[in-house]
């Protein structure tokens, strides 16, 4: 018999309180429902403790920490180039996108800028990891709402993108390809044509998903009006990415800040939705995947020739200073606050991950919803456990 931890004790008290609570009108007793830590809706190991009154949630709270790996502490004993290995594993579905803001922060402190060709390739790989990440979301969404087919489509088409990432970087999930001052390597021969073909397939996939899922009446009735987040609440909680744009905030870090990346060289649209419900969040992600394929297509045509690596010293020492760089990652705003002391490694790195903020709204959002909607809301908020716990 193990000792009850604080958290367990609290949930125990909560369950007792819920059980003691009697709904006088319906004469139902409350109960505590424990979802997870291992549940398909949790993308890892998140545990949701929900106190129910009949079918309705009275109080719910996610308990995270099942995957805390202490990356902020570990960065303090790593050198700057070694940190990318760690940050790859924060959001493991869009790994390359995690490397970019950290590398950009280090480059900002050093006053180095990657060559134009490297910036193009970075942007393309960034968008490819977004497509790989979000296409899995689109398939998984179906599974969580009871539709099996989309996930097969998603896994099939995501494979093409992963193959592309693998052939360019050597890694399917953890590329570790970005370097301070550029990229590890140039693109392999024939990669550009192959990517064009895959982008066509992916647009096809988006159309299929839109037909299959978004036009589906059951899907609509399960997501429309469920889990509505108003604009001001979204801002207060620091939601980002599609979750923020679904609440009507027209804000995309790819467009609204100047970074040495190439998004402004392509013609694309930032989609917003006024509703703020689960449907809006899913719909925005579908549109974003389409836009990403467009960005990739346009940038592929204009990659300049040249080196992919600026001249940086063999042993990288980053000058003293502080820098904050965040980018619009597949899950939302991912940023690093890097403090350097002129050493080989960072003095302190604060990792601002999107899912941590996105999921911190759940106690507010789940209050009063019905049990099946818990899964819908969690699915539509879209988080990766590694991105919450870090």
């Amino acid at each position, binding site marked *: 018999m193990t000792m009850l931890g604080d958290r367990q004790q609290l949930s125990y008290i909560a369950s007792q309180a819920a059980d003691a609570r009697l709904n006088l009108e319906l004469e139902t007793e409350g109960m505590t429902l424990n979802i997870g830590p291992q549940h398909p809706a949790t993308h890892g190991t998140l545990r949701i403790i929900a106190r129910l009154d009949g079918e309705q949630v009275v109080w719910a709270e996610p308990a995270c920490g099942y995957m805390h790996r202490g990356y902020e502490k*570990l960065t303090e*004993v790593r050198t700057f180039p070694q940190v990318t290995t760690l940050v790859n594993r924060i959001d493991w579905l869009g790994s390359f996108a995690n490397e970019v803001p950290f590398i950009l922060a280090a480059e900002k402190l050093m006053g180095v800028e*990657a060559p134009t060709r490297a910036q193009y390739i970075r942007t393309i790989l960034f968008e490819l990891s977004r497509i790989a990440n979000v296409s899995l979301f689109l398939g998984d969404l179906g599974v969580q709402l009871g539709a099996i087919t989309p996930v097969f489509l998603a896994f099939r088409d995501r494979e093409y993108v992963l193959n592309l990432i693998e052939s360019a970087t050597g890694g399917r999930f953890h590329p570790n390809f970005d370097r301070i001052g550029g990229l590890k390597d140039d693109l392999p021969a024939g990669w550009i044509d192959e990517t064009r073909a895959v982008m066509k397939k992916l647009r096809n996939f988006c159309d299929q998903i839109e037909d299959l899922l978004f036009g589906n009446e059951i899907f609509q009735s399960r997501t429309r009006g469920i889990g509505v987040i108003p604009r001001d609440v979204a801002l207060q*909680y*620091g939601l980002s990415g599609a979750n923020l744009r679904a609440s009507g905030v027209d804000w995309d870090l790819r467009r609204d800040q100047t970074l040495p990346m190439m998004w402004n060289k392509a013609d694309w649209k930032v989609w917003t939705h006024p509703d703020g419900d689960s449907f809006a969040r899913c719909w925005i992600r579908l549109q974003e995947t389409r836009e990403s394929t467009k960005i990739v297509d346009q940038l592929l045509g204009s990659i300049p020739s040249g080196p992919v690596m600026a001249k940086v010293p063999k042993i990288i020492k980053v000058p003293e200073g*502080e820098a904050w760089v965040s980018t619009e990652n597949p899950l939302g705003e991912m*940023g690093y606050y890097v403090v350097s*002391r002129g050493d080989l490694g960072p003095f302190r790195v604060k990792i601002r991950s999107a899912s941590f*903020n996105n999921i*911190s709204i759940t106690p507010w959002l789940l209050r009063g919803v019905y049990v099946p909607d818990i899964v819908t809301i969690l699915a539509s908020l879209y988080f990766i456990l590694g991105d919450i716990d870090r």
Partner: protein
Amino acid sequence: MKQLSSNSETTTPAVDVVREQMLEAIKGSLGDALIDSHIKPGDDLWIRVRTDSWRTSVQKLRDVHSFDYFGFLSAIDWMPSPYGRGEDDPTEPAPERDMTIRSGYAGGDTRMQVFIRIVNSTTHFGLTVKVDVADSSPSVESLITIFAGANWHERETHEMFGIDFVGHNDLRNMYLPVDFEGHPLRKDFPLLARMVKPWPGIVDVEPLPGGDEPELAAQDSNGGDA
């Protein structure tokens, strides 16, 4: 060495007019609550406010200057780690380290500082606000009444740095077990993995297993599964 494209030269002037103007406006509304500030032209703005007016300052920044988007809240321990980078040779005497506490941008008088990132959601102008926390009993006012999203960030900071947030009544651990002792992100908290087993990088040349010919032969005769 540097490869600056032409457009980044034009967008990075020596004097950052937008940030200077914003700093003047903030100075006007915060008054003497603002202690120090720092501008990196074309990059970012840092300000430091007094500990006793932390909550009111952030409230003013949100209400007067419409910094309505909550980015994150965290802390920094400015004391250099007594363990260095965890690469000391345990057989050697402990090396001398410079343990003077130096603060970063916008200064600081204490070992630890809490800082937040807030952004104006319309103009997308962001700034970092820092506040000192007393060394003896590190505590600041909680921001949960201003930004609801600060809730989890303050819990995390409390757990990792041992900083108390007055007004936050639910500072449970998020990640660590309840009976965990210490605050992992403080610099004087050793990284246990490096304490238990010394960093392999301290050995210049590690003897390769089976470097000797006879041993190699013996291993081979065992079928190589020794």
